[in-house]
């Protein structure tokens, strides 16, 4: 079985997302968003939060539509307020755009691990090796930083401060230890990587549309 390559999927997702910005046609938006949503249905459990958040943000979209696009023919009255045709159209359009974005993004995430993405973009799309490395390193750090962040939050609670940063100063006093410890790690990791020949790294660039059997195995053995 062959599988769509990371770079092809990346371009498709980016195009779909850009279309969400550009398209204004209700029917086209409906088609594309249904399609991208359908692609994620198989693994919907893993991205249920995405859709839940999407539903929540639709409240804001609705309010916006009623405030700024409530023009034209009145369709129905809710609590004595007229809901006009313009608001319905505006709400439908923005909702479908957001569904398209969430669906396309979820499909991409469900298809590849972050490390596969970093490697795929490097060797297929010619992303500079340093940027690809940054992305891979970021995903190496993620759980470590989440733990650090939790520890900082606990310390703040212990010292009688807010757990969630609400002012820029709160934010600064939480970011400083996080980045300070992280910077030290990042510096030495940079040195270690240099000692493992990062400057010698040459990637053979080759665009692929699909991975054939063997390639896929090589590729995914590298894991998440």
């Amino acid at each position: 079985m062959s599988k769509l390559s990371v770079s092809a999927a990346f371009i498709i997702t980016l195009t779909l997302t850009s279309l969400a910005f550009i398209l204004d046609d209700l029917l086209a938006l409906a088609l594309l968003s249904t399609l991208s949503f359908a692609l994620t249905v198989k693994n919907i459990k893993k991205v249920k939060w995405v859709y839940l958040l999407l539903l929540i943000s639709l409240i804001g979209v609705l309010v916006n539509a009623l405030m700024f696009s409530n023009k034209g023919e009145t369709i129905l009255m809710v609590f004595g307020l007229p809901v006009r045709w313009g608001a319905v159209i505006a709400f439908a359009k923005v909702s479908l755009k957001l569904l398209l974005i969430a669906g396309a993004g979820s499909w991409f995430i469900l298809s590849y691990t972050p490390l596969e993405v970093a490697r795929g973009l490097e060797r297929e799309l010619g992303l500079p090796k340093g940027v690809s490395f940054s992305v891979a390193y970021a995903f190496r750090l993620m759980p470590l930083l989440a733990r650090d962040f939790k520890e900082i939050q606990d310390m703040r609670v212990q010292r009688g401060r807010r757990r969630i940063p609400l002012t820029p100063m709160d934010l600064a006093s939480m970011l400083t230890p996080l980045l300070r410890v992280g910077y030290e790690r990042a510096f030495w990791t940079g040195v270690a990587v240099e000692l493992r020949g990062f400057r010698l790294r040459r990637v053979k660039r080759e665009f692929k549309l699909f991975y054939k059997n063997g390639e896929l195995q090589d590729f995914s053995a590298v894991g998440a």
Partner: protein
Amino acid sequence: MIIEAISAVIIVVIALLLYLGGRRVRYTSVDYTVIGLVGVVFGVVFVPWWTVYYIVKAVAGPVGARLATYGLWFMAAPMAAVLVRKPMSALLGETVAGLIESLIPTAGGFTNLIYGFAQGLASELAYAAGLYRSYGPVVSALAGGLAAFPAVALDAVLFGDIYPWDYMTWIILGAFVSGLIYGLVAYLVGRVVRP
């Protein structure tokens, strides 16, 4: 449609110019790990920040919400620039943060990457305008502030957030001031992290 096409052309031209200008700079592995660090810190902080944004928006309205919270999304660029201090670091920092956010499950999907790239470009302009001689408080605050323009423009296209002109001015101003404040915070943090 025409306005969008023109903005796209402007963005591409700026990107190309910056790319050509920044090509001579050598990045070390340490620069890349630091970019990755900034990317993951802000990629992860960005996500729960939406909740704060919505809460503030409910209380303070669209302008107040932008003033209080928008700047955080612009912060990765000045943060990366202050820590790396090389041309293109602002653009890279914000873009990588946006890419990271695109690769973890969020409702925003790839819009994060698009916003990140556009905001990073705008922030990079601040440092480029200073001929990459200064990574200090003024330029960093400006880097945060400039990101407001692409952010508000993209909002207008995506959410249909098109308000009457006078109101729009307030929204842009709110986001801009917010960017200034958070850009300055990024500088203050960066100064301690990399003395």
